[in-house]
């Protein structure tokens, strides 16, 4: 802002000096126009995101969605959250992009061009729900360190690519393989070229699932830059950090992958439950795998007022990590009584499921509509915060919207 004001108040020559080059046709620059090179980056334009999205962090870029923006059955790019650990890569040439395989448990190192991946393996499309492990972190008490996500770090887009399993079979994997770890083209915040910002992964069992993709398309088009162009992993139902973006390499490991953000307290929770605020040693933390059961009311937006006697039609989505949601309920009396919602089957495994309901209100006043999903193993969303953990992961407390009857 200050820079913008300064630029507006100073002349062409000052702008030219800032840009380090002469402004050709400077004389015909419209008054008040700021050359592109001097504009503050507008993340909404840069990433084609809706203006209502909330910027949590601009270095690295972390932007979250809001419950009512996630109403579409399949999330379009403009409402998809962005989570980065490092700097988004600058120069990407899909023509020369390669994906290399190495590690203790490959039979030999191998590398594929993007066109080889597309032509040599069968292409599949799935709708896959990806949620940030720290979605809901802002509610934890004592507070947990990191980007303070509210409810919007989740999306369910359609991803097209080849199965990681098919490519791993082509590479040749030894029987002692335990884990895969990804490597990517993003760069570390410190500028150190030797440091990877994030290199996570998952066990072989997840790598071998039908839905685990090496994806090159999102919602029927090339993957947008901020979401991993031109190639990314998509591991639906697991913390989004396992779905590596800007994918350049995969290491097949004979041990649990130990890249940055796999160790210490990153994406880990206490193996045994602890009291809020407890100090937990690294060796007592376990890696998060499947995300827990959760749901969002995406319509109406919180804050609706309606006259007494009018019923409220609401809807949303529910998901349960590796599992399916089998029951969906709502309450208008702070959890005293629950009623069933209509619940649809997922488009495919690991896609979120749509629910809807109609609530009636007995008298005037302030209400909250609470929604809770129950998974195929009988786990329901808690009404208060679930187990506290040092880094504030896995908050799946039931979502609430405020309603006033007048």
């Amino acid at each position, binding site marked *: 802002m*200050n820079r913008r004001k300064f630029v507006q108040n100073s002349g062409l020559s000052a702008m030219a000096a800032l840009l380090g080059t002469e402004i050709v046709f400077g004389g015909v620059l419209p008054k008040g126009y700021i050359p592109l090179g001097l504009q503050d980056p507008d993340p909404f334009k840069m990433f084609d995101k809706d203006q209502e999205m909330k910027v949590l*962090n601009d270095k690295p870029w972390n932007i979250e969605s809001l419950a009512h923006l996630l109403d579409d059955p399949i999330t379009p790019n403009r409402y998809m959250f962005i989570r980065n650990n490092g700097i988004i890569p600058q120069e990407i040439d899909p023509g020369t992009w390669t994906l290399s395989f190495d590690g203790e448990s490959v039979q030999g190192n191998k590398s594929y061009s993007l066109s080889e991946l597309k032509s040599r393996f069968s292409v599949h499309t799935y709708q896959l729900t990806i949620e940030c492990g720290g979605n809901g972190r802002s*509610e934890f*008490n004592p507070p947990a360190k990191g980007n*303070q996500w509210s409810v919007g770090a989740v999306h369910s887009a359609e991803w097209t690519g080849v199965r990681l399993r098919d490519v791993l079979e082509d590479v040749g994997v030894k029987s002692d393989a335990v884990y895969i770890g990804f490597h990517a083209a993003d760069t570390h915040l*410190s500028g150190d070229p030797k440091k990877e910002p994030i290199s996570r992964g998952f066990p072989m069992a997840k790598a071998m699932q039908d839905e685990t993709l090496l994806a090159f398309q999102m919602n029927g088009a090339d993957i947008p830059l901020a979401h991993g162009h031109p190639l990314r992993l998509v591991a639906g139902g697991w913390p989004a950090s396992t779905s590596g973006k800007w994918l350049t390499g995969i290491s097949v490991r004979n041990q649990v992958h130990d890249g940055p953000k796999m160790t210490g307290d990153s994406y880990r929770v206490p193996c045994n439950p602890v009291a809020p605020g407890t100090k937990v040693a690294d060796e007592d933390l376990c890696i998060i795998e499947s995300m827990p059961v959760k749901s969002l009311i995406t319509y109406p937006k919180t804050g609706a007022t309606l006259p007494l006697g009018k019923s409220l039609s609401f809807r949303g989505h529910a998901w349960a990590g590796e599992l399916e949601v089998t029951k969906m309920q709502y309450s208008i009396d702070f959890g005293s009584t629950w009623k069933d919602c209509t619940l649809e089957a997922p488009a495919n495994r690991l896609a979120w499921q749509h629910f809807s309901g109609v609530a009636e209100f007995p008298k005037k006043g302030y209400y909250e509509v609470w929604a809770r999903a129950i998974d195929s193993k009988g786990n329901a969303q808690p009404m208060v915060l679930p187990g506290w953990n040092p880094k504030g992961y896995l908050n799946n407390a039931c979502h609430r919207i405020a309603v006033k009857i007048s």
Partner: protein
Amino acid sequence: MENPASKFEQSARAISRMMGIIFAMFMVVGGFLVYLMIDPTLSAFSPEPEALVVVTPPEEDDFDKIENGIHLRTGFVEGEGLMTVVNNCTNCHSAKLVTQNRMNAEGWRSTIKWMQETQNLWDLGKNEDIIVAYLATYYAPGEKGRRQNLENIQWYALEE
């Protein structure tokens, strides 16, 4: 009887007087023209001289401007140690990563340690105490309980 010498004297005096007048006129016209060069609009004679104040903001002065207790460039709260925090904590990541967090002194210190061990943060020396004191004062945790009230609700009439 006319003295030719006095006649000459008379003529000379007349010429000298004329030359004096011409010189004076030249001086007046020339002076006016010189003045016109300096003040072409004759503004010195306007009843209300125009206030021609050229506002050129000094280039650096608002770079670290503080307004309503907020350091505008970063969003940090004004307080003792502010610039030490700005200079050490916004090089790699955005100030937003700091200001959205709440920790006590111990928590901030362990975050610094983690960044030094894994994220290439330099040794802060005696600045570490200044930074921790600032953060633990202005970005300390508040009591949130197990579930907070819904807040900042923007009420609207639901149209169908």
